């Protein structure tokens, strides 16, 4: 899609300004129902489109992303633009700098249409935890778009952006991509700079693209990847032009099928679609290899201990002093006497939503004296075992296949009363974050529910910094 639009821009079939106007018109028509956008950037978007049109007119070289309208998850800072992370505690926060991914996109003359909805601080699997609005799944508006990057997936699936950036801590790019029938890529940890991404869990968070197809994901990744001195955890190796590696040929590629992923609890229909997808890979010349990931059953518990621990630390900065909401005259708190402590208690009580408070408290408990060894340290040990499982597996296979999510898009309110039920939506996605490996979700089929055909995503997990191989496998699947 991006390549085709780029051609059309260069040969004058459409101007960047008209293209941007079309997308803004789509947003105005569809978004009152879908609810993807939190902030529109209309004026700046059109200004940027004009710049691109002038460059084209003068015959200057333009990048593949130049003039292409896109959307950003609202946890990425854009200088001078409101950035809420889906939370009331940042309702009035105006970012004073650009996230590295944003400055990279600006350099390529990307057209930023606006900021899109998400679960508060990226905590959730349905975008229902946003403090602002519900986002509906464009495929079936009675269902959630997934989360936490639900706004990003809905904007792309609803043709309100050509592509979007999301962030993925335990599946937050891949699961909404699966629910909305689009492509979502979580790169290797460190492949993309996290500078300017409002942190949830720093050892797991990674920014990546949500797109209409695999090639677009490769094109976007190439332009946001790379080392950044502002993110000390960013990889020291450079990025690549990933789109150059999509030959659409996977003869002899070894695809691992983890025994543990296809047993208990998996929806029958999703299981069948997954097996059909594997058959297709086989027909394309790939070899299916059964593998064992013996510690899989622990992944979700490890994930939620590490996430909540890091959350309790990262979100300590929202204190009513540095930025955002500051409450100083509430008398509801249980301790305090009109001093600084009371500001903390009241600001966080009022400004943070239920799931955020739940996670902060769980993490505080897990890290507190007497419990640290049993929870956090134990989790970091099992995390090593999980990584070793994959190291062993990758000696035998090139990529690993699984469903993206154990279900199709569910209905609003179906899981909001039971936090643990919501956590189980992440069962297939959290491991890639825990071990730092790249993973992609792409459409592999559909399931009929109440007369609507709902998309199902397949997930491939690749070797560390092996995005080119991973993308090529998904690209080959998509192509045939």
């Amino acid at each position, binding site marked *: 899609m991006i390549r085709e639009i780029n051609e059309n821009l260069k040969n004058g079939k459409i101007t960047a300004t008209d293209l941007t106007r079309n997308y803004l018109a789509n947003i105005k028509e569809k978004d009152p129902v879908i609810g993807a956008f939190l902030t529109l950037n209309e004026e700046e978007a059109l200004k940027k489109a004009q710049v691109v049109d002038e460059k084209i007119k003068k015959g200057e070289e333009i990048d593949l992303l130049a003039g292409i309208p896109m959307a950003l998850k609202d946890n990425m800072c854009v*200088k*001078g633009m409101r950035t809420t992370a889906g939370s009331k505690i940042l309702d009035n926060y*105006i970012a*004073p*700098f650009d996230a590295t991914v944003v400055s990279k996109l600006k350099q390529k003359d990307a057209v930023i249409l606006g900021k899109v909805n998400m679960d508060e601080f990226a905590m959730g699997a349905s975008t229902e935890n946003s403090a602002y609005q519900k986002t509906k799944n464009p495929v079936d508006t009675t269902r959630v778009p997934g989360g936490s990057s639900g706004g990003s997936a809905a904007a792309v699936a609803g043709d309100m952006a050509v592509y979007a950036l999301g962030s993925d801590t335990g599946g937050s790019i891949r699961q909404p991509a699966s629910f909305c029938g689009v492509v979502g890529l979580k790169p*290797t*940890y*460190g492949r993309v700079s996290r500078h300017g991404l409002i942190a949830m869990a720093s*050892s797991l968070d990674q920014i990546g693209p949500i797109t209409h197809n695999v090639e677009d994901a490769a094109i976007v990744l190439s332009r946001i990847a790379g080392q950044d*001195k502002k993110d*000390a*955890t960013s*990889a*020291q190796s450079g990025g690549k032009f990933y789109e150059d590696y999509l030959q659409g040929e996977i003869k002899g590629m070894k695809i691992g099928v983890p025994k543990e992923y296809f047993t208990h609890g998996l929806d029958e229909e999703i299981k069948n679609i997954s097996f059909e997808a594997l058959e297709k890979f086989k027909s394309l010349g790939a070899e299916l290899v059964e593998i064992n990931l013996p510690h899989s*059953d*622990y992944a979700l*518990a*490890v994930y*939620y*201990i590490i996430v909540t621990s890091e959350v309790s630390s990262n979100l300590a900065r929202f*204190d*009513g*002093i*540095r*930025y*955002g*909401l*500051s409450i100083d005259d509430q008398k*509801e*708190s249980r*301790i*305090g006497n*009109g*001093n*600084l402590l*009371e*500001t*903390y*208690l009241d600001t*966080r*009580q009022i400004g*943070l939503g239920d799931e955020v*408070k*739940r996670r*902060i*408290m*769980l993490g*505080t*408990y897990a890290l507190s004296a007497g419990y640290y060894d049993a929870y956090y340290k*134990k989790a*970091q*040990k*099992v*995390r*090593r075992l999980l*990584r070793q499982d994959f190291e062993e597996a990758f000696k035998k296979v090139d990529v690993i296949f699984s469903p993206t999510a154990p279900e199709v898009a569910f209905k609003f309110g179906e899981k909001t009363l039971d936090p*643990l039920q919501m*956590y189980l939506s992440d069962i297939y996605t959290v491991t890639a974050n825990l071990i*730092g490996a790249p993973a992609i979700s792409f459409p592999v089929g559909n399931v009929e529910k109440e007369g609507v055909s709902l998309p199902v995503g397949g997930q491939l997990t690749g070797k*560390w910094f092996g995005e080119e191989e991973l993308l090529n496998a998904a690209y080959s699947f998509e192509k045939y």
Partner: protein
Amino acid sequence: MLNKENIMHIAALARIGLREDEIEKYQRELSLILDYFQKLEKADTENVEPIGHITGINNVLRSDEASENQADLVKGIFENFPATANNKVKVKSILS
């Protein structure tokens, strides 16, 4: 099962004010999730080192100097402070 005092202690550590009716809710929800975490007890982690950085990066250092003109950034940061006085961030008293 966490008791009422546990929840109040955790909330105080986390600097989160709670209403009376929320305490019971968090008692129930947090206990349920902590029970799920118990699963890890079964994992054999003898002689396993806890993992550090997941892709193995170690001690990334840089010199501590401002690298660009930061005036604009500083202004933006100031504008986000909920309360300022004399070009400084204003904080309430810490002693009663």
